[in-house]
C-alpha cells in the first residue's frame, strides 16, 4: 500500500469512560460514532464505509442509520481496529468507498447489552485448554511470561516497573481511571491474580468506546482537524490457543505485523517519536519492543525499568496510561489508536513535543492476532 494516501479526519472516544451504567454497548458505539462525526464536521449520510468488531456491521449501521457500500467485520480481538484502519485505507485507495467510520464500544464493566463470551466444548480451545482451568484472560495471557523471563533474564521488578511508568503517564491524563502514583513495591505487594502477575500488572475492566473516520489524503486537507496520515500498516494472526504459539520467547503475529508496517512507512526505529504497545498485561510492552525490533528482548525489561519510556524519556510509550491505568473495556486497540491520533494532532493531555511519527501496535486474543499502524502528521 502507498504511504500517506489516506488520513484520519475524525477521532473521538465516548463522552464518558470508566463505569457507564446508563448505556448499552450498542449505544456506546453510537455515542463514539456521533462524537467522531462531529469532530470531523460530517453528517451520518457522508459515511459510505463502515467497520466494527464483535458487534456486526449490520447491527451498528442499522442503529446509526448508515447505508454503507463497503463494510468490514473483521473481529480478531482487541487489535481488530488496527486491521480495520489497514483495510479501510486499502478500500479508500481502491475507490470502494470515500469516508469510512470505524467504531468500537464495550460495556466491559457494566455488561449491558453485551453477549457473554463462550467457549464451545467441541472447539479446539474447549477440548485442549478449557479443561485445565483457564478462566478469562488473566489465567491465559501471562502463561508465556515465566519462559520469557527465563530466556531473557527479565526480573519481576522490571515487569512491575511497566505498571509504575504507565501510572506516571496516567497521572497527566484527566480521563485516566487510575492516577495515583505507585511504586515497584506496591505492584509486587498487590493481590496475586495469576503468578507471576499481580493485580497492578493486569488491565482495568471498564466501559467505553471510540471511533475513527478515514478518508483520502487529498480530501483530508478540507477537514477542520489536522489530518493524521496512515504511513504504514501491518497485520497477522497466529493461533487462538496460547499453548500453541510457536514460542513463548516472542509473538509470531507481532513479528509479522510490526516489520510490515515499518517497511511500508519506510522508517527506521530511530524515527519513532511516540509509541503505543497494547498493554492488556505488563509483559506486552516487552514483547512489543523486542518483536518490533526496537532492541533485543534481553534489553526490554531494563529499558523500561531505567525510565526510557516514562515522561521525558527517549521513547515515550503508552502515553495515555495504557490498559493498565487509562482504561480497558476489553478490546483496548481503539484507545491506543485514539492516543496516537491525539499525539499526531498535538492535543494529547501528555503531549510529546514535536512528535511527527507515532507507531501504534495492537494485540488480539492471547497473542492470537496483531495489527500495527504507523501514523504521521506530515505528508
Amino acid at each position, binding site marked *: 500500500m502507498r504511504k500517506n494516501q489516506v488520513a484520519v479526519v475524525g477521532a473521538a472516544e465516548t463522552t464518558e469512560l470508566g463505569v457507564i451504567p446508563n448505556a448499552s454497548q450498542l449505544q456506546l458505539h453510537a455515542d463514539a460514532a456521533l462524537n467522531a462525526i462531529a469532530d470531523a464536521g460530517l453528517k451520518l449520510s457522508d459515511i459510505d464505509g463502515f467497520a466494527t468488531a464483535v458487534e456486526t456491521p449490520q447491527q451498528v449501521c442499522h442503529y446509526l442509520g448508515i447505508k454503507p457500500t463497503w463494510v468490514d467485520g473483521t473481529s480478531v480481538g482487541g487489535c481488530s481496529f488496527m486491521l480495520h484502519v489497514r483495510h479501510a485505507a486499502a478500500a479508500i485507495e481502491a475507490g470502494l468507498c470515500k469516508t469510512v467510520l470505524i467504531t468500537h464500544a464495550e460495556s466491559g464493566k457494566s455488561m449491558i447489552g453485551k453477549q457473554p463470551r463462550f*467457549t*464451545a*466444548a*467441541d472447539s*479446539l480451545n*474447549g*477440548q*485442549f*485448554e*478449557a*479443561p*485445565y*482451568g*483457564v*478462566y*478469562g484472560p*488473566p*489465567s*491465559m495471557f*501471562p*502463561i*508465556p*511470561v*515465566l*519462559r520469557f523471563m*527465563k530466556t531473557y533474564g527479565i526480573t519481576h521488578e522490571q515487569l512491575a516497573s511497566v505498571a509504575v511508568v504507565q501510572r506516571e503517564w496516567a497521572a497527566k491524563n484527566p480521563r485516566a481511571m487510575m492516577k495515583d502514583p505507585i511504586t515497584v513495591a506496591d505492584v509486587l505487594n498487590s*493481590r*496475586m*491474580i*495469576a*503468578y*507471576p*502477575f499481580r493485580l497492578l500488572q493486569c488491565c482495568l475492566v471498564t466501559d467505553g468506546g471510540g471511533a475513527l473516520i478515514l478518508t483520502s489524503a487529498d480530501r483530508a486537507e478540507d477537514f477542520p482537524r489536522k489530518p493524521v496520515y496512515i504511513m504504514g500498516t501491518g497485520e497477522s494472526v497466529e493461533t487462538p*490457543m*496460547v*499453548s*500453541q504459539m510457536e514460542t*513463548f520467547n516472542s509473538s509470531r503475529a507481532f513479528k509479522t505485523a510490526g516489520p510490515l508496517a515499518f517497511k511500508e512507512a519506510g522508517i527506521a526505529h530511530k524515527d519513532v517519536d511516540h509509541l503505543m504497545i497494547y498493554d492488556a498485561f505488563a509483559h506486552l510492552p516487552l514483547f512489543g519492543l523486542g518483536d518490533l525490533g526496537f532492541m533485543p528482548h534481553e534489553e526490554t525489561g531494563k529499558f523500561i525499568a531505567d525510565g526510557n519510556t516514562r515522561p521525558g524519556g527517549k521513547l515515550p510509550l503508552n502515553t495515555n496510561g495504557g490498559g493498565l491505568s487509562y482504561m480497558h473495556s476489553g478490546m483496548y486497540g481503539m484507545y491506543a489508536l485514539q492516543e496516537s491520533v491525539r499525539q499526531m494532532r498535538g492535543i494529547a493531555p501528555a503531549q510529546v513535543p514535536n512528535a511527527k511519527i507515532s507507531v501504534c501496535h495492537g494485540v488480539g486474543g492471547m497473542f492470537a492476532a496483531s495489527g500495527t499502524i504507523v501514523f504521521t502528521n506530515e505528508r
Partner: protein
Amino acid sequence: MAEPQRARPKPTPETQHFWDGTKAGELRLQRCDACAHVYFPPRPFCPSCASRKVSVFKASGKGFLYSYVINHRPAAPGFTPPYAIAVVELDEGPRMMSNIIDCPQTPEALELDMKLEVAFQALDDKITLPVFRPAKG
C-alpha cells in the same frame, strides 16, 4: 446443589482418536507420512506440508515444563485455587496445555524445564484428561 464441574471436552470426528487414546491410557499424537512432522492438536492433514497421509502413534508421554501460571482468581468451575495451568513440551516436539499433579502448586516446586511424565485423570466414563506429574528418577 451439584458442585460446579470443570469444563468437559466434547470430541469431534477429527479428535476422537485422541480421546479414545487417553481413555485407553495412551497419549496419541500424529505424524505426517510425507514429511515426518509431528503435530498437535489433532487434524487429518499435516499443518506443515498439507499432506493428507498422516498416522496416529502412541507418544512417549515424556516432556518438560515449558511455562505456567499459578491461577489464584478468578478460579474456573471445578478448580480450587491456587492451581497451576501449565504448558508441557513433549519429547516428540508438540506442546500442550495441562495440569501438574503430585506436586505442590508453588513457584518453588514448579521449576521450568523440570522433567514430566503423562498421567491420566478420568472425568467421567467418556472423557479422560492427560495430565502430567514430575518424572520419577
